[in-house]
C-alpha cells in the first residue's frame, strides 16, 4: 500500500510539474500563431480559428471574435455570447436541481 501511495505521489507530482511547464504565459499568444498567421491583426488565442471569418474576395482569414466581443478567450466568448442561450439553459438546469433539492430536504425556519 505504501508503494501504491508513492506511485500516486509521483504521478501527481509529474502532473503538476507538467502543467507548470506547459502552461502558456499570461497574455501571450501560443507560439505557433505568428508563423501560421503572420498577418493576424489581433492577438489570437485559444483556437480563434474556430470562428474566424473567411474573406472570399481577398482569400484570407479574418478574425472577428476578438473585435466583436472584446474578449481574448474565444471559448468564453462562444459560451457566453455567441451561444448565450445554451448557458442560460444550463443555468436553468442548475436552478431547477437546487430548487428540487431544497424542496425535498429544506427545513422550515424556526
Amino acid at each position, binding site marked *: 500500500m505504501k508503494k501504491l501511495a508513492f506511485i500516486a505521489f509521483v*504521478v*501527481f507530482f509529474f*502532473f503538476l510539474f*507538467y*502543467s507548470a511547464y*506547459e502552461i502558456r504565459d499570461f497574455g501571450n499568444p501560443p507560439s505557433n500563431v505568428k508563423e501560421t498567421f503572420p498577418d493576424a491583426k489581433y492577438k489570437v488565442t485559444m*483556437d480563434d480559428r474556430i470562428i474566424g471569418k473567411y474573406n472570399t474576395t481577398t482569400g484570407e482569414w479574418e478574425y472577428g471574435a476578438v473585435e466583436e466581443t472584446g474578449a481574448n478567450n474565444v*471559448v468564453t466568448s462562444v459560451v457566453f455570447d455567441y451561444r448565450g442561450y445554451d448557458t442560460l439553459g444550463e443555468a436553468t438546469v442548475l436552478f431547477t436541481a437546487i430548487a428540487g433539492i431544497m424542496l425535498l430536504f429544506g427545513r422550515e425556519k424556526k
Partner: protein
Amino acid sequence: MFEISLFEVLIILLSVFMIASAIIAIWFKDLLASVIALAVMSLLLSLYFYILHAPDVAIAEAGVGACLTTAILIITIKATKRMEGDEE
C-alpha cells in the same frame, strides 16, 4: 520501427492508469476506498483533458469530479454503510 513521442507515451500511460483505477473502484469491497479510486480516475481524466488542449474542461473536471463528487459520496457513505454486501 514506430516513432513514439512523449505525448503518445503520456496518453498510453494515462489510459492504463485510468482503466486500472476504474477497475479498482468496482473491485474493492470497501466503498470509501472505492470512492477514492474514483477521485483518482477523475483527476487523471482532468490531466487527459489538459494534454488534449481543453484547459476549461480540465479545471471543471478537477473541481467537480475530484472534490465535490467525492465529498457528496463520502457524506452518503457516512449516512449508510461502509462495506459492500453487509446484510443487516
